[in-house]
């Protein structure tokens, strides 16, 4: 067991994109492509195993060493602030974190005049840090999903959320007013794993890095 490298992947698109990247360096797990409901996929010939978990849980598995490495969005890393290494930007899962508000509000709104805002978000820490650096007081409403709903029913004036195509915002009559940061997925590594198995993990990082640097 101790020679097996455990990788935690977030269920969904990032999982697919990561596996595509791994395939380019010769690591593939066809079993994962099916409709399997398994949570752990063993790859004995590579001495690896993959576990598929919720994106927000990936850093936790890696921090405690239940997984040696993982892949997770920068948004989640910043929000959770865990003690981890994040040696590589995989340049997948691109999106941006932005402040959005109803179209109506935007017409007369001037972000530089904000002094106090009420924001619904899944990312209270990032939001608070962003606004406090601008000197704006922020009243946070932490939600776990369907953030776009909040301004429509008067729960908050604005939201901070991830935007990729902008389609969800548009369908709910919201527009982006400020971009907070660009987000991509990162390779993260447990500290003890990196120290006790640096040759293997470093080799994996370097092979992935040269693929990422090539672009798609």
């Amino acid at each position, binding site marked *: 067991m101790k020679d097996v490298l455990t990788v935690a992947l977030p269920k969904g698109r990032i999982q697919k994109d990561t596996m595509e990247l791994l395939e380019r360096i010769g690591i593939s797990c066809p079993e994962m492509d099916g409709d399997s409901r398994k949570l752990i996929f063993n790859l004995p010939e590579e001495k690896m195993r993959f576990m598929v978990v919720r994106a927000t849980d990936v850093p936790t598995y890696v921090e405690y*060493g*239940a997984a040696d490495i993982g892949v997770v969005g920068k948004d989640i890393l910043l929000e959770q*602030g865990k*003690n*981890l290494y994040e040696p590589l930007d995989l340049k997948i899962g691109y999106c941006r974190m932005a402040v959005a508000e109803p179209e109506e509000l935007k017409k007369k709104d001037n972000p530089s005049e904000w002094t106090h805002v009420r924001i619904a978000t899944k990312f209270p820490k990032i939001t608070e840090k962003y606004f406090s650096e601008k000197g704006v007081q922020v009243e946070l409403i932490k939600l776990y999903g369907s953030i776009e709903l909040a301004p429509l029913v008067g729960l908050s004036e604005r939201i901070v959320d991830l935007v990729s195509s902008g389609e969800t915002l548009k369908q709910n009559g919201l527009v982006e007013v400020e971009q907070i940061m660009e987000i991509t997925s990162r390779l993260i590594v447990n500290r*003890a794993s990196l120290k*006790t198995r640096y040759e293997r993990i470093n080799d994996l990082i370097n092979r992935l890095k040269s693929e990422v640097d090539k672009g798609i």
Partner: protein
Amino acid sequence: MRKREPFSPTSLPKGIRDYLPDMAVRMRRVEGALSRVFELWGYRKVITPIIEYLDVLALAEPGLLERMFKFEDRVSGKVLALRPDITAQIARLTATHLKLHPKPLRLSYSGTILHYGESSNDSQRVDYQTGLELIGLDLPEADGEVIAISIEALKSTGLTDFKIDVGQVEFFRGVMESLNLLPDQRKEIDSIVARKDRSGLEELLKTLNLNSADEETLLSLPTLFGGRDVLDRADTLKVSGKAKKALENLSGVLDVVESYGLMDYITIDLGEIRDLHYYTGIIFEGFAAGTGESICGGGRYDALLSNYGYDTPATGFAINVETIIKALENQGKMDSGATTDYLLVNCKQDKRDALTIAKYCRSRGISVARDIVKRDMDESKSFAESENIKGLLIVGGESVSNDEITVYNVDSEEKTVHKINDLLDGKVDL
């Protein structure tokens, strides 16, 4: 109105816990093994208080201020704190009581420290630490000795697959000081290098306008980890005199460790920046395969004692006993924590035979607990099992004669019958 949570009269504060017998025994065994190794290297134990003045503890490391539990001394009105670290206490103790003592001083300690946890994990506020300090020497052999002891101490607990990761804080400081960066930029690089975020560093460098040699040095920081080849790679970089000196020092320390024949346990990381600012040279941290958190940590702190009025160099480390137990469990190397050899059941009216046997066993170092309660043999057996007792000694009973004793092994369920007199004459192996 927010309702107050109902308060349970038996609850403990967050992050604080009791240790029941199985765990307490393991803690004592691990602590005993570590302390024994420290003794074998000539270190002598000191005991420091759990409470001190806040200001005195904070002298060592202002960063500890917000992590300490604080309260008021009703008599003096001063603020007291529970110790979050023992190194600072050893520094104070040495600078006061042992200032005139010939150097070097080799001191060790074991004790509980208390602190608020990290912001991301406040579930552990108490640690039981065993550690040592080598005071009065700034030679590489001193650091080499301390690193060698940490390895021997960890080995003595039964742990096998672990590494001591060695760095030198002056290398990173030397590199950074020569760059003329603004404090904000410096802070950002600190945090990027601590995360080994190569991609983030590449992005940041685009905004900094450094010359190509400095860029190369910075970009290498998150990759300068691994075996001894790290030093060769670092040597090719154009760095300041301070950074060069740090590399020479690290190399000298590793030579000592090599002479002890312990290089297999060593990894090197020049991009490691420990949270505590009191380190001034070599730093190191232990990691065990299968355990996410570090298992020990230490390094050189040449300026710490001068905070207490005694300007002398020092180096040392501490091991968190509980983390070692976790690591041993993860590697399947932790014993059961059993301490009692036999439960003594007397089936006869007369207690004298039973108590003579108990006395005999104890005098031979075999631990025996009397099953004072009258109950079924099966109940006695399950009691022994639940108390982690290895076997039963049954004096008398139905199927044996009056001068016989039955030895029952809880695990194997095997029974052997012996004459009581044979046992007392030392003819029975218990």
